[in-house]
């Protein structure tokens, strides 16, 4: 659906994106993370065809965003960071104009506008000038605009900025729903939001793509390896046990797939162990086996927990604070 190959972008001497490559398929919600100035907005603008890459190419549904710009852009709905709009127009007028600009046939425009007004909960303000709306409503107008021609790719730059918590929750639900049929890429600084909605993340650090993959795997692998490698070979599991005879470590070491055992805490009455399980086998099956083994040996199994790194920890580990540019 989206193919980004070796994309670099310079603004004068400043390298905003450096050899970024990834591919995204249909039906997923992808979070684009990165500190300010990491290149998130530049990347979204390049995918939307509003900017040309200095090097590399972007294809949307197989169409190049430079050589087949209009065909590629017809597949994309793009919401810029500040959700700009023509503030002198009424909401319905603005959306009708945008539908016309995107090439929607005259007979289909009013139905499309009504549909997106309903989706974005804007029916009550349809006849109001955009300049009279709050920032949250303006954001929703931008969201309605994005959905107008039912594009297969949605690019949203900080879509929840300016929304109240209820509106943010509604938008998250909408994104989740859209993610079943569309490719949704959205950037946000609100990490719980990414965590709540996205199945995959892309992390940009000073213009470089340092992380890409399924969110859960990334969190688990980062917790395990403490590195930025996207595909660590093991999964970290924490066990809390009642094991007065201290037999658990020996039993677990004999199991297939256990590549490491470390003592986390020993309170005398309770023991905490961290296991490294091989990803080459099903982690769920390994957890079942080790639980049966421990219980069968009369060891009190109080907790089994896969360790994942919270996204904000992951973010701060992989994207350390930057020095102000000189």
């Amino acid at each position, binding site marked *: 659906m989206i193919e980004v190959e070796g994309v670099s972008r310079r*603004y004068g001497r400043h390298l905003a994106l450096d050899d970024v490559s990834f591919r995204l398929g249909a039906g997923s919600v992808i979070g684009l993370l990165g500190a300010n100035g990491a290149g998130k907005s530049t990347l979204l*603008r390049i995918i*939307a*065809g*509003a*900017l*040309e890459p200095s090097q590399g190419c972007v294809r949307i549904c197989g169409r190049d965003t430079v050589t087949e*710009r*209009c*065909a590629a*852009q*017809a597949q*994309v709905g*793009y919401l*810029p960071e*500040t959700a*700009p*709009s*023509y*503030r*002198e*127009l009424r909401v319905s*007028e603005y959306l009708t*104009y*945008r539908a*016309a*600009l*995107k*090439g929607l046939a005259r007979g289909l425009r009013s139905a499309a506008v009504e549909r997106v007004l309903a989706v974005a909960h804007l029916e009550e303000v349809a006849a109001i000038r955009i300049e009279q709306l709050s920032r949250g409503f303006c954001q929703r107008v931008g969201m309605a*605009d994005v959905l107008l021609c039912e594009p297969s790719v949605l690019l949203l730059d900080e879509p929840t900025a300016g929304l109240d918590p209820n509106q943010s929750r509604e938008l998250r639900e909408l994104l989740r729903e859209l993610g079943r049929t569309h490719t949704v890429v959205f950037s946000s600084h609100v990490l719980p939001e990414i965590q709540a909605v996205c199945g995959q993340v892309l992390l940009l650090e000073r213009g470089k793509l340092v992380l890409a993959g399924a969110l859960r795997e990334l969190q688990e692998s980062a917790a395990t390896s403490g590195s930025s490698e996207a595909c660590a070979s093991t999964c970290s599991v924490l066990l809390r046990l009642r094991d007065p005879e201290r037999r658990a470590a020996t039993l677990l070491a004999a199991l297939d797939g256990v590549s490491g055992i470390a003592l986390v805490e020993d309170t005398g009455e309770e023991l905490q162990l961290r296991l490294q399980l091989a990803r080459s086998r099903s982690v769920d099956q390994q957890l079942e086996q080790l639980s049966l083994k421990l219980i069968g040996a009369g060891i009190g199994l109080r907790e089994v927990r896969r360790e994942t790194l919270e996204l904000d920890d992951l973010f701060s580990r992989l994207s350390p604070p930057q020095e102000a540019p000189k």
Partner: protein
Amino acid sequence: MSGFVATLRRELWSFWTSPAAFVSLTLFLLVQGFAFAAVTTAAAQHPELAELGLLTTYLGQSLFVPAGLLLLCPVLTMRLLAEERRSGTLELLLSAPVSTLSLVLGKLSAAWLNYAAFWLPTLVFPWLVGEGEQGGALLLVSYVTVLALGAMLLALGTLLSAVGRTPMLAAFLSGTSILTIVLLGVGEQVFEPGPVTAVCHHLSLQAQLSEGARGHLSLATLLLDASVVVFCCFLTVRVIDSWRRE
């Protein structure tokens, strides 16, 4: 095509729903009304002007018409692209699946229609003094000249709106350019006859208006105006496309 029509309609709608449009129209008509009244008064005192015809004197001899162009064209074009850039809506246009040329033509056409709408009420002037019924062809040629000149200056203004980063800067650049053209036209009277005066004559707004107001429609002049429009549109498209690479 959809981009052209959508842009044209949006520009017209945005312009005519703003109070600024009606304030500008009122001021423009006041100035032109004053100019025509001044011509009428002068013709009462100078019979040679009355012989020439009031419409010919008003459109061809009065300095108020070039002055009107100098003020009107920057006002009509200053926001076309500079305002899109300033307000951030440019990103919406650049990410829309439409050709840059259709955007530029849509905006220029809207400005030209607005320009025509400003001149439209002045058609009443010849009728007020009884010249309307006699000189239909003269009226037509005079106003075709005004519209052709307008297209040229508006295309220049559209280009400068793309170059200027703010509407005020665009208006300043456009106003300065038109003033330069007006002053080049003055060169026709200043220099000795020769190639320089020939160039000044071709570029002179006053000369074009004067010829048109006498009922002479020169193909060379129309071609010059059309060439400037095409060249300015070409450059404007190039400037906008360069924004994608900036």
